[in-house]
């Protein structure tokens, strides 16, 4: 096989893997925006929280590396704890920082969200340190395709990443489309006042939205740690920015759009890293965003509301 083609196929996988964790973060952005039209800038930092809190939980036990036998069952258990803690944190943030400002101008909660983001980052640096933190190698990196190619790789880590994130995306879509709660969330997103008149407890729906969004970001942080083996206190800023871009690209407020946007950004990043140079990737991604906002402000799949309101 030609090394050029191998490298291209390898980057397709890299792009998909970046898309996977960006999509989980972007879902939280887009759900929260859909309901209260707030761009929650602290959302990326919940991803970081998932990374660190899962690391702390692993540290409580003497876990073998790589995971073996019964320890593999620890993965879903810890994941559930991480979802509850991160989702809970997001609910608390909403209750304390955003709800009191719900009646005020658009800018007040936006600035508050930026402030919450800075606070969280400072707290992480204080608790876990400001260095690059190593995440133990619980998942092996043996290449299933090693007989076939020296460049293309598919490892147990990829299996974990795709195996966790893709079902979550499908599950969330079904949940919003098919359940009573999902219907209530869609109703609240469409018209909050009318939904309240119909007997929907809007505050509760908003809290649930924050919980689900936060939980998804938390699980993304944990999977990211297991997948890449490294992270630091401030990484949520970078990933949050890309995830937010993905949400806008797909159409803010649109669940399927967020996933599509994340995979587009992951792919653009992987290809531009290889064929143009890593130092240009951001330029290209944000140029895409600007073009999108100029020519199709509601995103690829259409926003649940027009973006002019932002």
């Amino acid at each position, binding site marked *: 096989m030609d090394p050029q083609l191998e490298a291209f196929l390898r980057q397709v996988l890299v792009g998909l893997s970046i898309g996977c964790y960006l999509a989980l973060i972007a879902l939280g952005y887009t759900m929260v925006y859909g309901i209260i039209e707030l761009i929650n800038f602290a959302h990326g930092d919940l991803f970081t929280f998932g990374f660190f809190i899962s690391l702390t939980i692993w540290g409580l036990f003497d876990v073998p590396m790589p995971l073996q036998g019964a320890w593999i069952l620890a993965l879903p258990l810890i994941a559930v704890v991480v979802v509850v803690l991160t989702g809970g944190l997001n609910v608390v943030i909403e209750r304390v920082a955003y709800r009191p400002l719900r009646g005020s101008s658009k800018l007040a909660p936006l600035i508050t969200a930026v402030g919450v983001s800075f606070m969280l980052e400072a707290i992480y640096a204080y608790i876990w340190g400001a260095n690059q933190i190593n995440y133990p190698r619980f998942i092996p990196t043996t290449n299933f395709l090693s007989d076939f190619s020296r460049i293309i790789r598919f490892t147990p880590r990829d299996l974990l990443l795709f195996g966790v994130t893709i079902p979550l995306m499908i599950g969330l879509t079904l949940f919003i489309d098919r359940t009573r709660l999902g219907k209530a969330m869609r109703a609240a997103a469409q018209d909050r006042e009318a939904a309240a008149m119909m007997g929907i407890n809007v505050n509760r729906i908003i809290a649930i939205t924050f919980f689900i969004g936060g939980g998804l970001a938390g699980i993304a942080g944990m999977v990211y740690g297991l997948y890449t083996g490294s992270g*630091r206190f401030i990484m949520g800023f970078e990933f949050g920015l890309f995830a937010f871009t993905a949400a806008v690209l797909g159409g803010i407020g649109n669940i399927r759009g967020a996933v599509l946007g994340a995979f587009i950004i992951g792919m653009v990043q992987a290809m531009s890293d290889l064929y143009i140079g890593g130092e240009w990737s951001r330029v290209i991604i944000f140029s895409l965003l600007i073009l999108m906002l100029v020519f199709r402000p509601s995103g690829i799949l259409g926003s649940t509301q027009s973006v002019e309101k932002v």
Partner: protein
Amino acid sequence: MLAKRVVVFVLLALLVLGVSAQDGQTVKIYTSWPLTGGTQAIGQSMLNAVNLALEHYLADNEGMGPAGLTVQVVPLDDASPTSGAWDGQIEAENAQRCVNDPECLVYMGTYNSGAAAVSMPITNAAGVVQVSPANSYAGLTRSCPTCAEDEPGIYRPSGEVNYFRVAATDDVQGPAAASWAVCLGFENVYVLDDTQAYGAGIANEFVNHAEEIGLNVVGRSSLETADSDPRSALTAALRDGADLIYGGFVLDSGGPRVVQAMYDEGLFDEGIKFMGPDGILSAALIEQVGGAEILANNTYFTFPGLLPSLLSNEQGVRFYTDYVEQFGEEPDPYSVYAYASMQVVLNALGSASETGTVDRASVLEAVRSTADFEGIIGTFGFDENGDNTAAAFYGYDFESDNFSNPTAITPTMHETCE
């Protein structure tokens, strides 16, 4: 107001006349580098080393300072408590404090090259000798292709050279690394950097020299932040048949992640190695990549000199064992240079006393004429620019649990190592 004037007049008179020495005279050495903030650990280790050098000198000379002088170290901090990093304002004040103290004959510092650019003109105008253990920016002492046009003249308002440094300069490190790579048998290098002044700068030096000496640079790219995904660069390195990746990084700009990814992505299994500069040579790197087994037999590093634990000469062994015993921790690599700087200063005080007066001028002259001095870092002196005549870079590999097997490396070594 009047009192102030009198003080200033007296100080000026002292400066003009020269502070003359008598037996039992006290001589102060001011040190200035960060003792708080991000590089606090390094700064404290350097200060410990300076004090240890004085202790050793006294122990070897029956408790007597050079020529019966009483030597006093005055440690100053040039880091700002708000930013946690060196601060030009504070550095300027520190230099001024030494100049204003008639007993201060030596200003020792700095750690950061940028800080030296602030204090050098002040000590130069006052004729106080300045000795730096750690500055590595070339332009402080000589003109170079990447330096500003008016360097080093702007640091020498008096036209005299009063600044001397013990550590080697960055514009040698990159090229020496490229020559060493040739000697190690590498042919195709992929170069990565962090887009920052130090990282991209040293990567540029590496690439320029590699092209001159026929080492093939198969590709080059940058990581924008420490959170950028390094895997794409590794794909390119694999595709282009690299056998070495050179990374211009510091600890917190993504270097550890590149090494980690090389391990996880199977590049080390393929026999591809990693080489990096002194910015990532640190005990912290071992922890951040997830253990020594990741680095072992896969990585190479360059550093301007010998690591404390590897000093094999008598003085070095004594420094290392006494340091560990007294402070209960490993000395920082740069502490060796702080120790060497103090040795040079004490030696110069002894030589100065032979001229009859120990004052700023005679001490400066004594440091300037340092030659064939046998210190902890071997035999060296200072050239007319104030640079160490025997400044050397060493290459390290990582054998089992630590940086090991130092090899002297130079930008011309590829000519003779075949």
